[in-house]
């Protein structure tokens, strides 16, 4: 099994998180936005797992399982919303829904 400094694992998690963040902010297509959110959640879970591996505790993995549950529920609702959105606006461009403009 690998013996790497815990920082390295956390760096990777942070890098993945930031990539997901850029995706959320840049993409206008809602499917990409949802995928980027998945990436961010996964990165957060990875940080837990890395920390759990570092301290030899099961708690990190348990947090990952909870995040996983949350991601599953979120994807289900998010995809349903996307379907309705497409049905309503005939597009997946998030900027199409801007009636809340002040």
């Amino acid at each position, binding site marked *: 099994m690998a013996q790497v400094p815990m920082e390295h694992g956390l760096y990777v998690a942070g890098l993945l998180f930031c990539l997901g963040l850029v995706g*959320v*902010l*840049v993409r206008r297509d809602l499917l990409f936005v949802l995928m980027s959110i998945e990436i961010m959640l996964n990165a957060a879970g990875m940080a837990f797992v890395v920390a759990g591996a570092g301290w030899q505790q099961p708690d990190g993995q348990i947090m990952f399982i909870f995040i996983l549950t949350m991601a599953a529920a979120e994807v289900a609702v998010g995809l349903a919303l996307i379907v309705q959105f497409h049905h309503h606006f005939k597009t997946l461009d*998030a900027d199409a*829904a*801007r009636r*809340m403009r*002040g």
Partner: protein
Amino acid sequence: MFELLWLIPALPLAGFLVIALMGGALARRAVAVIGVGSVGAAAIVSVGVAAQFISAPPPGDSLTQVLWAWLEVGLLRPHVALCLDALSVTMILVVTVVGFLILLYSAEFMGDDESYAWFFAYMDLFVASMLILALADNLFFLYLGWEGVGLCSYLLIGFWYKERENARAAMKAFIVTRVGDVGLAVALLLIFTSLGTLQIQEVMRRAAQEWAVGSNTATLAAALLLCGAVGKSAQAPLQTWLPDAMAGPTPVSALIHAATMVTAGVYLIARTNGLFSLAPAVQSVVAIIGVATLLLGGLSALVQRDIKRVLAYSTMSQIGYMFLALGVGAWSAAIFHFATHAFFKSLLFLGAGAVLLATDEQRDMFKLGGLRAEMPYTFWTFVAGAASLAALPLVTGGFYSKDMMLWNAWTSPKGSPWLWLGGALGALITALYAFRMVFLTFFGERKSVVSRRPGPIMRIPMGILAVLSIFAGFLETPGWLGGMDYLSPFLGTALPGLPHAKSQPAMELFLQALTSLLCVSGVLVAYLLFVAHPEVPDRIAAIKAGGWLQGFWFSGWGFDRVYEFIVVKPFVRIALANRGDVVDTLFTGLARANEALHSSLSRTQTGKLRDYALGVVAGAVLAIGIMVLL
């Protein structure tokens, strides 16, 4: 009877409340019955109270009825209290009796008016305020009545407010008298701060103890009171509102602007005579103002064309006489003239009202004429009033009261032959303009159609007032003519008399003969100028100086123009400059700044999901950055 005193102001007030609150639901007849009846009932109570006061005077010749404590602020504890003494008895008698007669007259006169109920409501409120003013036991309560009559005057001058001019006249009257009222208010404050009370008798007593004769405080207080009196009584230099006040209905002019309210100033000075005695300088100013106004008003009345304006200037001039009497310390004479003036001047107004009603509001006397045959009743009562105004010797009330004032102006220690001369000259002018009015209106050829003659309800008050204006004079006659004196000793219980001048019957007789001669010659000159040779006045006016003088007097000596120039125009200019409300820009500026901030912030609300997410992330990054770095 005395315990019913409170009813006297309460009855008209109740009449006002009833009519004002349910005027719409009442029939015209019911309105008239309530409006006239409440004042009539007050008049009956007044007569009863007066009868008891004369037959069985209360101890100390004055009586105070405390109704309830109005308010209590530190030393200021004004009561709603009525004070009855000889002065207020005279006042309430005149106010209620004349008020009742005029209201009775109005029941027919105003018959066709659409705001019939409001007219009676205002008139009742006026009578109530006037009675409060007359009966008030302290200056605070008096001030309530003072402002109340001012309000009613405003409402009634502008009664036909749909015409712009009338509303303007009402506003002018209100604003000009306000100048004086401020003086009165300041006077009250001054008296209260320096004497610690506003109860009138107490004020007189303490002032006599604490203030030296001619001291600054006394002079200031008297001058400020005079300010209020001058404004209310339309004396120079605040007289300009009275001629314009004729815009109101004629009964209003009769009651408010002839008989009662305008004499409130005289009443105020008589009431606070103690203060004026302590300020001899101010008292001589009162006399000078009186003479100035009586000449100014008389000369202006001489050239007016509008019959009501003649009467207005005449009122001004007659109140000038009262001020003259007050100024020389002849308090009783002033009140005597107040009473006779109330009778004959309201009579003249009622007569003028009948003429106007008959000729469809033809106010220009040069377009009237020859009405003697058409309206004999009105003519004879009008002549009775005019004769009394002109003070025709022996047979009229005005003669006795005017004579008493002039004699006092000559003999009083504060009087002087100059003041007498002014008054005597005024008497000549009075006779001249009074009979000019009579001759122009009732003599000569007929120039207008008489459409309506006064009915019995209008005739009765005119008749009663005619009798009163002729015979009221016999309350007080000079020594050689029976020497009746009912009024002076009576009023003497409330007002200090003059130090007894040494009796000079020969001198008195001579002066009386002289003034009588002046009056009669005034009538004769009027006859010559306006009946026998009507072309002469035009010829005088055709001369340059004559024409200029006519224009000058016609405009009331140009006071309006001067005030327009020094007060109204600058004020209007300031108001225009401040149209955008300079102070308000600060607040609108605040609002504008907020609005600008708002719109710039609301521009961030793009409605785009990405932008919101960007905002959230930027905030999070910033927050984390702060946590990490600090």
